[in-house]
């Protein structure tokens, strides 16, 4: 059973069609990389999955549960959208950490706010908070940030910020973790440490969708690759197929330009 199925997703901004008939699916534990030139719609696709944009047409299923059927005209209530969103996590290109909170507080905040809505919160506040804190500390240690937990974002390097952001997204244990060009705001040296962390997650079978320009990384780490061009899926398959033996002229063109640069 696929963990995620997207069928016939279409999205336009005004007159511009940015995503046209996007369909794909992935299994639990898969790492799906989405590659393609800037403006090909990769980021918009991730934003649709995370309910930051509403597709004009689409059926999105997670574990056979229909999260979104855009043909149903009625808008989801804010409460429903919130619940459905939690199937996905999103790591942003620009981190978007909350500057007034420490690394640890950034990771704890959302889980704590959700815990407040549970019936036992008032009576077991201390235990629940301690559990959330322990969980957040584990995640930060896993990200190699054991000695950075009480630092504020402005005291951290870009790579450290992005690792905090990954821990923050993991804290809510999403079914599918999405990355929107997670290393594009980082210099090459810092890129390495973030990619190492994502590679570690892949090895532990975290289900991930990664929009990236790091071709070598996408080839190594993915179980499945989608090449997007001009709002459409131009080619998809295993990394060996897409990188080793691309069928489409457009894919060859894109990959050769990439090879020239390196």
């Amino acid at each position: 059973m696929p963990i995620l199925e997207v069928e016939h997703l279409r999205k336009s901004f005004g007159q511009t069609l940015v995503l046209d008939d996007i369909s794909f699916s992935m299994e639990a534990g898969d790492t799906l990389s989405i590659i393609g030139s800037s403006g090909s719609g990769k980021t918009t696709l991730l934003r649709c999955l995370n309910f930051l944009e509403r597709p004009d047409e689409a059926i999105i299923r997670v574990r056979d549960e229909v999260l979104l059927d855009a043909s149903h005209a009625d808008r989801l209530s804010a409460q429903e959208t919130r619940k459905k969103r939690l199937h996905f996590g999103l790591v942003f290109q620009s981190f978007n950490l909350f500057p007034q909170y420490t690394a640890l507080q950034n990771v704890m905040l959302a889980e704590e706010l959700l815990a407040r809505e549970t019936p036992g919160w008032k009576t077991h506040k201390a235990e629940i908070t301690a559990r959330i804190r322990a969980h957040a500390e584990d995640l930060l240690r896993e990200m190699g940030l054991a000695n950075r937990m009480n630092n504020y974002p402005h005291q951290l390097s870009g790579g450290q910020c992005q690792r905090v952001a990954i821990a923050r997204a993991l804290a809510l244990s999403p079914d599918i973790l999405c990355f929107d060009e997670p290393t594009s705001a980082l210099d090459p040296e810092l890129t390495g440490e973030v990619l190492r962390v994502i590679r570690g997650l892949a090895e532990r079978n975290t289900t991930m969708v990664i929009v990236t320009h790091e071709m070598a990384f996408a080839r190594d780490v993915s179980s499945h690759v989608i090449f997007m061009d001009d709002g459409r899926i131009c080619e998809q398959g295993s990394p060996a197929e897409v990188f080793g033996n691309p069928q489409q002229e457009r894919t060859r063109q894109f990959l050769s330009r990439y090879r020239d640069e390196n």
Partner: protein
Amino acid sequence: MEQFLQQFPVVFNSLNVGFLQTMKLFFVTLLGALPLGLLLALGEVSRARVLRGAIKVLVWIIRGSPLMIQLLIIYYGPGLLAGSISAEAAESNWFLAFLRSCKWSGGEDGRFTAAAVAFIINYACYFCEIYRGGIQGIPVGQEEAGLVLGMTGWQIFFKVKLLQMIKAILPPISNEIITLVKDTSLARIISLQEVIWAGQAFLKGSQGISGAIWPLFFTGVYYLVANGLLTVGLAKLEKKLSYFR
């Protein structure tokens, strides 16, 4: 010199009483205008188009006209309106009867309430525009990060945006607060017995002192001291919020 030393205790006493009224107006205005301005700002960035338009018009009127005129209209307006309604007309219509009863109570209490209303509305409009800038200046990524973490709109506002907004608006708000200390003197126009009024009394003659202009000059010292203390306090607050960027 001897005359000055004789006058000083009397004047000092009187100015202190006046300045108490000045400070009362200052704090009541802040207490009312800071939250009201936030409500107006939230309305101005909301999706309700009619509300947005209405607030824009209000802000235009209040910021576009002198506070002194607003004070006069708010203080004398209701009385003039009530006076134009005859007793017979009020008897036949409950709404006219209501309007006829809308008057500020006479005396210092009525003047103070009218002044507080005028100052709160006026300063709320200035604060509103500062808040709006603060809200809109927060990167959209902050809101999106909150959304994908399953936060509600209120949680995002109170837990994520509010403190960042306060930090951003503190310098312009400090500026307005310092201006407010001095603007309270405008309430003199409706004879509120604040510090300028108290100083001026000795020019016309009060408590055996007349023709003395120095008490009026001396009121400036009160404003300087108050603003000095405020400047120090606000700078401390700004420093307290410098732990994040």
